[in-house]
């Protein structure tokens, strides 16, 4: 088929707390939330109001700027509260579940009878479009644009990431249906990138690519860059593989399945596992007495790109895992565990620490301490070692910081998403919040150039 593309620039951060391959089902009780904040730049226009009764798949709100993009309820029950934050911005829609999970029924034809436009409308109506992202800008895809390709990664290489071979083991039929639908949807190709000898290589209706190497090899951004990079004026779409399976299931059954399998991971979880959950469940019911210690950070997602959450918060829309790691809000004496210590407890990509001498099997328990203060860029060449793009990461970040639109365009801002820079941010000696700078750059591009 195709040749294996090998990613050598990058870094596998070896953390303690990989999920054991068992699945625990989390029952649907209490309050579930849908948060418009999970979708960057979205302004929601509400359809339901407090007190309304909803079923699974009922529309809660739509995108004010693009009214065809709709967001649906993951549970059946009553809309309890529409929570607003500063400037009356809607932060959460809380739904009290009735635990019955009665679902809205869609009338569906046979898949081969659908046209591209009909598939698109179906995905928009059933709320699946909210998972479809586009590059440039790394936001929800604009359904009115023509995309030159749709990219799906069948594996996640982030620290402690779930293993989709395991997660989707029983969903191969749904996946196949999902990909067939996407193939009808797209004028361009549907690309599926997998590890060598992956179970997903049997799927039809997709163009297969094989990748191996270190993180970010599993990031769809890395894969796009090596398969068919985005040029100015072009669009590509990306979709998580679990969503493809969910689309397949929807087309088979006519109802939206709001359940996903996520990994409960991290050094502070004493029984790591996979969880079968409904989207928008509270963190507390997910971690459910499996946490050691109190001063910990709950992350919806992985340690590189996830969102910080409290126990009372809800898991984010795009999260495929929960990671729990210790907080690092303590002073560290410089000679013992601080900046001039032996450093066997730290995981570093720099040879200033002995990490490179330790065996590859050694795993680390890392906390949220920044291990130093923010400075101007000083060190050169370190970001390039973990950035497998033909893009100059420091120069692009500086262009974003200085709001230099011309330079950003020239240096490849259209190809990247903040998550592509997560490893750069991790290794940065001067502790610059690179993902945030790139996001600000993208926002500027969105307002000035798109």
């Amino acid at each position: 088929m195709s040749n294996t593309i090998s990613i050598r620039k990058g870094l596998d951060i070896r953390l303690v707390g990989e999920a054991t391959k068992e699945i625990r089902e989390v029952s649907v009780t209490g309050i579930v939330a849908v948060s418009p904040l999970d979708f960057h730049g979205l302004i929601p226009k509400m359809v339901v109001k407090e007190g309304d009764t909803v079923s699974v798949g009922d529309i809660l709100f739509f995108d004010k700027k693009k009214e065809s993009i709709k967001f649906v309820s993951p549970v059946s029950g009553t809309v309890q509260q529409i929570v607003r934050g500063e400037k009356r911005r809607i932060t959460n829609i809380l739904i009290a579940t009735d635990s019955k999970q009665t679902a809205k029924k869609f009338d569906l034809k046979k898949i081969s009878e659908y046209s591209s436009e009909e598939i698109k409308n179906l995905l928009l109506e059933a709320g699946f479009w909210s998972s479809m992202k586009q590059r440039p800008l790394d936001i929800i895809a604009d359904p009115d644009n023509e995309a030159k390709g749709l990219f799906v990664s069948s594996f996640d290489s982030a620290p402690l990431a779930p293993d989709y071979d395991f997660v989707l083991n029983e969903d191969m039929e749904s996946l196949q249906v999902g990909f067939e639908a996407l193939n009808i949807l797209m004028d361009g190709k549907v690309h599926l990138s997998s590890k060598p000898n992956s179970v997903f290589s049997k799927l039809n209706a997709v163009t297969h690519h094989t990748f191996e190497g270190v993180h970010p090899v599993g990031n769809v951004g890395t894969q796009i860059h090596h398969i068919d990079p985005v040029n100015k004026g072009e669009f590509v779409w990306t979709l998580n593989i679990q969503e493809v399976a969910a689309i397949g299931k929807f087309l088979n059954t006519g109802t939206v399945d709001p359940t996903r399998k996520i990994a409960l991971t991290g050094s502070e979880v004493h029984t790591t596992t996979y969880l079968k959950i409904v989207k928008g469940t509270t963190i507390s019911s997910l971690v459910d007495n499996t946490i050691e210690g109190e001063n910990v950070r709950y992350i919806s997602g992985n340690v590189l790109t996830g969102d910080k959450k409290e126990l009372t918060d809800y898991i984010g829309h795009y999260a495929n895992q929960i990671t729990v790691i210790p907080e690092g809000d303590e002073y560290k004496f410089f000679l013992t565990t601080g900046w001039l210590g032996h450093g066997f407890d730290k995981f570093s990509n720099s040879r200033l620490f002995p990490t490179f001498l330790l065996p590859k099997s050694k795993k680390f328990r890392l906390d949220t301490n920044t291990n130093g203060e923010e400075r101007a860029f000083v060190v050169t060449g370190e970001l390039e070692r973990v950035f497998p793009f033909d893009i100059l990461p420091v120069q692009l970040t500086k262009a974003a910081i200085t709001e230099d639109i011309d330079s950003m365009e020239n240096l490849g801002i259209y190809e990247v998403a903040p998550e592509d820079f997560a490893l750069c941010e991790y290794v940065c000696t001067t502790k610059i919040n690179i993902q945030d700078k790139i996001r600000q750059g993208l926002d500027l591009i969105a307002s000035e150039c798109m």
Partner: protein
Amino acid sequence: MKFLEKYLHKMEPHFIKGGKYEKWNPLFETLATFAFTPKIVTTKGTHIRDGVDLKRTMMTVVLALIPCLIFGIYNTGHWEMAVQEGNRNLPYFTEMMAKFLTGLTIVLPVIVVSYGVGLTIEFMFGMIRGHSLHEGFLVSGMLIPLTMPADVPLWMVGLATAFAVIIGKEIFGGTGMNVVNIALTARAFLFFAYPTSMSGDKVWMSGLGDKMATNPEGLDGFSGATALGDLASFMSDKATVAGEVVQSNEAVQNFSSEYTAWESFAGMIPGSIGETSTMACLLGALILVITGVGSLRIILSFFAGGFIMGLLLNALGGNPYLDLPAYYHLIIGGFAFGAIFMATDPVTASQTALGKIIYGFLGGFLAIMIRVLNPAYPEGVFLAILFMNIMAPIIDHYIVQANINRRLKRLKTA
């Protein structure tokens, strides 16, 4: 260390905004963050961060300078004694403890002045801008003394440091923002402002100038010239080696017996405090390269550039300096010190991988060209590096432009 941590907790309220010593917060913060990695946690983006920070990086460079420093102290002590005894051929490895201590009394004050003046100014800027001390000067403060001649007056060290920190760095915005290397700015300032104290044959051995002026007894025929000083004379009508006039056809031979390759490599010759020993520099290079702090690309290409220029000069030939074996250029003067500790400064060097190779190569190439072909400057290394500091952004510009063109080409073919 719990008591210290408790004490810091107790003191902290006085120094934060609204506290009674609010103004002194940068000083407090500098000391506190030196003793303890602060309890700052990630707020957005990645939730974990690499262990590495700028303090550890800079401290590693200081560590890499220690071999040069220790050897420099001993070497300074040795030549001080040679002056006192009026014997340039004083055996090198005798009275080692005494030489080291003598050297220490000369070098230590230079270091104290350099750090004292530099850190004071940095703190002042920190207080104006409301930030704690940034780590860059930890290295500059050590580099400056090592580039000074042993006989340099302390006030000059202070003045040069002040000039370098203010004009070279702080007006651009501080650590990470400077255009040219700080330590070399200090060196260049003195070289052009006080040439008689920075060149010639009286400044390289501590006490030589004074002793000649007040009590020249026993100094008949004694020369304080450096290898580079002697070589510079090869370009004039009267070639000298260690004060003695030599015939031009024997000049190179005399030179290489006065400064044998081994002595030059080990650094047992007069020169600036920390620069003479190529061996000590290479030990530092080993630390920098293993830890990844110094760019191997720059170091190797700098040496390659110097060596190739040396070979070209050999091919040209015609006078004793041009005939000097090319490898000699790499082990005398400040060549190795410059290549390893000055050219590799990440802020002022090229930032792209290919750019670093071009930058290093041209740096070494120009250093030897200036050294040999320009009679006004016996040493060309610091000038070449300063020049390349200015050129580095231009080199990077073309590398970046190549990247941009690749992307544009993709758009056209697509």
